[in-house]
């Protein structure tokens, strides 16, 4: 089910003019910011399909930058996101692409700072609802409906068991889980959607596990 809540339909409360091209775009930017874990210093935003054709009229560009500044869909500051970005030292570039993407409203964000780079592809599927479909080269499906853990780890035996044990110990129920790797024995990514809120203690515990390299979270 793509849409889960009545508030996906009657909502979100948002700054106009487009739920898919403004609110959904802001949410893609904000998810990227959350997963990156800090304010990026630069952003390269590739736009596909309808996003590429109409982003200026819909404010898709200011919305994505607003999202990268951690603004929610109803935050009036979205309108001044470009000026705000300049003030906090976030430089950005928008690149409309010709090629067909998996969805007519697709954005690929490459963001970074002196410490790291992250690449995220999001699709805005209508009514302000979005999904993350790729993260750092890993295909995935993350709706943002549930609190989620994204764990980058080495592809070794026992890592999945260690992670799920740590989660089970806190009586947290796993709603959905997927694991993918680049090559056998190389970097892997675990995406775990859970029913309860995730606290810092769990994140610290997961980060301390052997072969876990990075833990990011997404609140509901």
């Amino acid at each position: 089910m793509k849409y889960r809540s009545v508030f996906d339909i009657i909502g979100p409360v948002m700054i106009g003019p487009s739920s898919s091209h403004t609110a959904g775009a802001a949410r893609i930017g904000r998810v990227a910011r959350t997963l990156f874990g800090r304010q990026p210093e630069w952003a390269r935003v590739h736009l596909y399909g309808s996003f590429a054709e109409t982003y200026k009229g819909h404010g898709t560009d200011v919305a994505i930058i607003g999202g990268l500044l951690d603004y929610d869909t109803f935050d009036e500051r979205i309108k001044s996101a470009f000026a705000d970005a300049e003030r906090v030292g976030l430089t950005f570039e928008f690149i409309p692409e010709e090629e067909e993407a998996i969805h007519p409203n697709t954005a690929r964000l490459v963001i970074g700072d002196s410490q790291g780079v992250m690449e995220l592809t999001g699709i805005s599927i209508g009514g302000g609802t979005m999904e993350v479909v790729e993260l750092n080269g890993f295909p995935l499906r993350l709706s943002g409906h549930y609190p989620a853990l994204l764990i980058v780890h080495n592809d070794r035996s026992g890592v999945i068991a260690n992670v799920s044990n740590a989660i089970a110990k806190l009586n947290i129920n796993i709603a959905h889980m997927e694991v993918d790797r680049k090559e056998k024995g190389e970097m892997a990514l675990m995406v775990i959607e859970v029913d309860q809120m995730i606290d810092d203690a769990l994140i610290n515990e997961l980060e301390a596990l052997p072969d876990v390299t990075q833990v990011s979270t997404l609140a509901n």
Partner: protein
Amino acid sequence: MDVLFSNVKELVALAESQNKPISEIMIEQEVLITKRSREEVIAQMDNNLTVMEKAVERGLEGVQSTSGLTGGDAVLIQKYMATGKSLSGDIIMDAVSKAVATNEVNAAMGTICATPTAGAAGIVPGTLFAVKNKLNPTREQMINYLFTSGAFGFVVANNASISGAAGGCQAETGSAGSMAAAAIVEMAGGTPQQSAEAFSIVMKNMLGLVCDPVAGLVEVPCVKRNAMGAAKALVGADMALAGVVSRIPTDEVIEAMHKIGQSMPSALRETAKGGLAATPTGKALEAKIFGKDKVDSDTVKS
């Protein structure tokens, strides 16, 4: 994920067998799925209703979009109604003006509540605040209006689409008008099945509607499509309340909308490349608004 209903047939059957309004089934499903309390869910919808009220009020004071393409029509319609000369009737014209008001605020980058999208955000509140004057609903009934709209929208979103880029305007103002018609029926005391009939009657008249916004802006023809969507919602609700039924069941109408959307060329799905956007005047407006910026360089640097 366990849901109480995944199509309109199940939704109506549940409401009728339990002798509950559709809004109540939607509230129960929301509580079940999100594991939030009933009070929290109703409070959030109450808040959305307040956002809608404020958007209508602001639009009726008169707003202008930055492009200059839209704004001020809601005021014109209200002034005309005040002369008492309206031919189509005050409730329809009131709904039209309030739908326009909301979308003019949306185009001006004001705060609105998407129902189910921002481009179609005028229809559900526009009709609600118009029928309110005739039916004198309680605050709770007004909140329920939104839950009933949401229940039908939930089915459309999951079984078809509510995105203009994916399914054309039929998926946006088409869905909104049909959702509103179903909600009007419930508020007016109709049965759950009559809500479904009203939905079908309106949606059947939205099929094939393309998404062709001039300059890619949610303004022309979006604002006026919200106006007509509100009018159709009221007429469709009245027809269903009169006992008129749709020969094609609601879920099949929704499926038809989905398939029509899939076969629509990309030029007519929110790319601003076809339809009204591609008319000489549409293109001239685009050039005027974006100037050389849009024509010569598509890469923006900060």
